[in-house]
């Protein structure tokens, strides 16, 4: 009894020290989360954050500098860069999240099966992952995107597949660790079917690192998707996404730096915010 209470108290104490440690980074974390909230809000309700229409061309205010008529200046069609950025957030987030989800599902499944079965299955799946890993993520996505053609779905598939190896490796390693735990053997000795042991005992104990990796992958996926758009492999729509906006502003960089610069800053901030949030989550979930 006393021992049980002591353990409970120790748990509470550990949580307290964790709080005090993180409070040093609370400011950056706060900024990160606030920025992510803004991006999510822009993606969800672009009309609220940017009041003027993103598709209306206005020859009277072409290439105006930031602050003259609009906060972040206008592009060569007279559209507000701020409005375009706000409206581009949805595409960036949808592709980032969907690609991460896809990569996580496929990768985790591959890692789970490889780690649990071992032997020939592990070897085959391991080589498959190695092949995917041979190519840098962006290059792989580039190849897939150009092979499949430009559409939102294809972009998600391309970026998602490039995220598969990371998830597969993390999950496999975790499953190998958890598989040897005594409670897994105890579950087996209680006569549970292998599938049940895998899904109920190994999987729930293996997800924490995957969750952390997923947050970071959302950031990189946004960048990869933007890179593909920048290279012209993205979806051509009336409203450019962040990658396209970067590409669009490139010819005007000497005179109207703001068209390319602001999307660049927004992308950078988003990725940094996501990875800081990921770090925080890692501490929180106690993943090494």
């Amino acid at each position, binding site marked *: 009894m006393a*021992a049980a209470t002591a*353990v409970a108290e120790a748990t509470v104490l550990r949580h307290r020290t964790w709080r005090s440690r993180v409070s040093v980074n609370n400011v950056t974390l706060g900024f990160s989360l606030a920025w992510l909230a803004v991006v999510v809000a822009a993606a969800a309700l672009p009309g609220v954050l940017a009041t003027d229409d993103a598709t209306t061309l206005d020859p009277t205010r072409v290439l105006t500098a930031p602050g003259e008529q609009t906060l972040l200046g206008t592009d060569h069609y007279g559209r507000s860069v701020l409005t375009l950025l706000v409206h581009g957030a949805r595409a960036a987030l949808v592709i980032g999240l969907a690609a991460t989800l896809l990569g996580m599902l496929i990768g985790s499944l591959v890692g789970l099966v490889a780690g649990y079965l071992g032997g020939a299955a592990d070897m085959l799946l391991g080589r498959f992952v190695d092949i995917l890993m041979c190519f840098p993520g962006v290059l792989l996505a580039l190849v897939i995107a150009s092979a499949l053609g430009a559409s939102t779905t294809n972009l998600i598939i391309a970026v998602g597949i490039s995220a598969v190896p990371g998830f597969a490796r993390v999950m496999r390693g975790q499953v190998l660790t958890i598989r040897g735990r005594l409670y897994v053997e105890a579950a087996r000795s*209680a*006569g549970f*079917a292998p599938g049940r042991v895998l899904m109920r005992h190994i999987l729930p104990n293996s997800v924490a690192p995957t969750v952390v990796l997923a947050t970071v992958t959302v950031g990189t996926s946004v960048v990869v998707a933007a890179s593909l758009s920048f290279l012209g492999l993205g979806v051509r729509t009336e409203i450019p996404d962040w990658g396209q906006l970067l590409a669009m502003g490139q010819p005007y960089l000497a005179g109207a730096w703001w068209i390319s610069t602001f999307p660049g800053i927004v992308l950078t901030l988003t990725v940094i915010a996501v990875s800081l949030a990921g770090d925080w989550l890692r501490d929180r979930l106690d993943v090494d």
Partner: protein
Amino acid sequence: MPARDHLLRLDGVSVELDNGHRDIPLVRDATLDVRKGEIVCLVGESGSGKSVTARTVMGLTQLDRRMKVGGTALFDDVDLFSLDAERMRRMRGRDLAMVFQEPLSSLDPVFTVESQLREGLRRRERLSPKAETARLSEALQEVGIHDCERVLRSYPHALSGGMCQRVMIAMALLARPRLLLADEPTTALDVTIQAQILELIDRLRHEEDMSVLLVTHDMGVAAEVADRVVVMYAGRVVEDADPQKVFAAPAHPYTGGLLACIPPMVGARPVVLPAIGGSVPDPSSLPGGCAFHPRCVNALPRCTTEDPPLEPEAGGTVACWNPLTREAAPAPELVHNGGSA
């Protein structure tokens, strides 16, 4: 011997680990019986193959493809080793249950005690949620946990080792097994809890008419609860006898050595406790003949060439050419700090 009396009968069980180059024997020709309602203690040093034997009966060793298992394990006249994986799996958690050495890591950290016990109970029978809860509380009370509600709601990290082990035993007993395999169930616990757990196992086997194969390296534990003591060394059964016999007049020099290591509770204590010289041989390089001969005080020239069979000797069975119970030719002393009878 009347065969119907036996619940578990291991005959010539061998376990070999294929390390990719060759087969390493972990258990060699293990032969032992567990009768109904009996507690059999499997004792020996670390690495003597006792845990592997227990895990093999459970069919857990076989899950590792590198392990090769031979011999027969008759459980109620069914050879466990001849069952396919699926039928063996169905026996686990129903006819056979196991309790492990480290209670704190035997429970899944992400689920509450309640959900894990429920999961175990459902292996055995389907009850209404209410009846299930009643059974869980009953099972916890059986193992001496009285604040059931708190324990059921707890996650394993919030419980002490003794509590976790009680929960593990409760879980094993929910299955109402006919044979409980307990792999050093009290080793990780402090002495008072240890005594309680042993008492609990002893009481429950009477109440439930359950047989127990208790793996331990602690002769004291064996003395306390065993109906029969089986001593293993380097993967072999070297002695099998009643505890009275084993403790009063051990036949195998190894058993004698193990007993000599226990400090006497009365009288003067030796300044240096006697110990068996050397250590358990690596299974990949066992000495020829009797595996114990390099450490044995009674070794004969014959011991270095021939492995003795397990034969009846003074009321038990022993695998030794020169047992302590037989006043044979004076043995040439090979090891000087070994225990003597």
